[in-house]
């Protein structure tokens, strides 16, 4: 039987935790689209799930090569969404981690940070543009709808910064410091 769960995650590690808890309870992810998780029944704890943000679009040759490599190592490609890929591996095959040293973890976090910064920049400039258009509306006697839109954009910018960009920066800095003294 299929079970649909609608949920939004902005932290891939929390999302992994969620998917692994679901798997522990006998629900294995089989599909994902924007905030929509589809699970099917599976033996409890059969799979371990891991997420990754790829460097290139999924269709790109390098991504395809990488996914094939992952499959050769016993991981299963479940679904992709934009550049995010959902992998799983049978728990019976042992632990499943994609990145196991500080260097590669930092690289992955930096890719995610770049994505956040991109969304940040888009919203920031959309905000500025709407402030400008809002002011234009006011001077011509129309209601300043764009100003309200700008407030939304700037709120997104602030939330991104506080809840996503600053925390991931902290993670990167911590790993970098660790790298000074050990691998």
């Amino acid at each position, binding site marked *: 039987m299929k079970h649909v769960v609608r949920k939004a995650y902005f932290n891939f590690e929390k999302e992994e935790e969620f998917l692994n808890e679901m798997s522990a309870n006998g629900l294995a992810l089989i599909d994902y689209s924007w905030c929509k998780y589809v699970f099917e029944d599976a033996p409890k704890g059969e799979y371990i799930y891991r997420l*990754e943000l790829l460097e290139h679009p999924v269709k790109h040759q390098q991504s395809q090569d*990488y996914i094939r*490599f*992952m499959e*050769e*190592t*016993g*991981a299963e490609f479940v679904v992709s969404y934009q550049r995010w890929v959902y992998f799983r591996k049978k728990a019976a095959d*042992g*632990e499943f*981690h*994609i*990145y*196991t*040293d500080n*260097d*590669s973890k930092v*690289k*992955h976090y930096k890719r995610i940070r770049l994505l956040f910064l991109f969304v940040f920049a888009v919203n920031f400039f959309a905000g500025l543009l709407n402030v400008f258009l809002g002011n234009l509306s006011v001077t011509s006697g129309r209601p300043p709808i764009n100003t309200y839109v700008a407030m939304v954009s700037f709120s997104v910018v602030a939330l991104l910064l506080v809840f996503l960009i600053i925390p991931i920066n902290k993670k990167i800095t911590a790993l970098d410091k660790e790298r000074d003294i050990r*691998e």
Partner: protein
Amino acid sequence: MKEYHEQGALTEAVYYILLSLYEPMHGYGIMQNIKEMSDGRVLLGAGTLYGAINTLLKKEWIKSVSNDEASRKKEYQITAVGKDIVNQEIERLEELIKNGRTIAGGGLS
């Protein structure tokens, strides 16, 4: 030796990947081999391994070997340069161990 200092220490992952590739091996084989060699201590993630393989290929410390079998899995093997690197690393590690044992008696006491 001078050239060596510019390169610095190898990471544990790279050292074990190079050792594994004295025999031609594909990705999963490398992961399993490293796990066995280290008695389960070093578990190499596939993403980390993939990145390392590509870097080592670029540096020409390893090469991919074509296998005519039906298997599509890519196999890799260490090059002469890679072997030099491993030998230099062993020398470096021996120095570390010798000094460690002399001063701290680590592992023997």
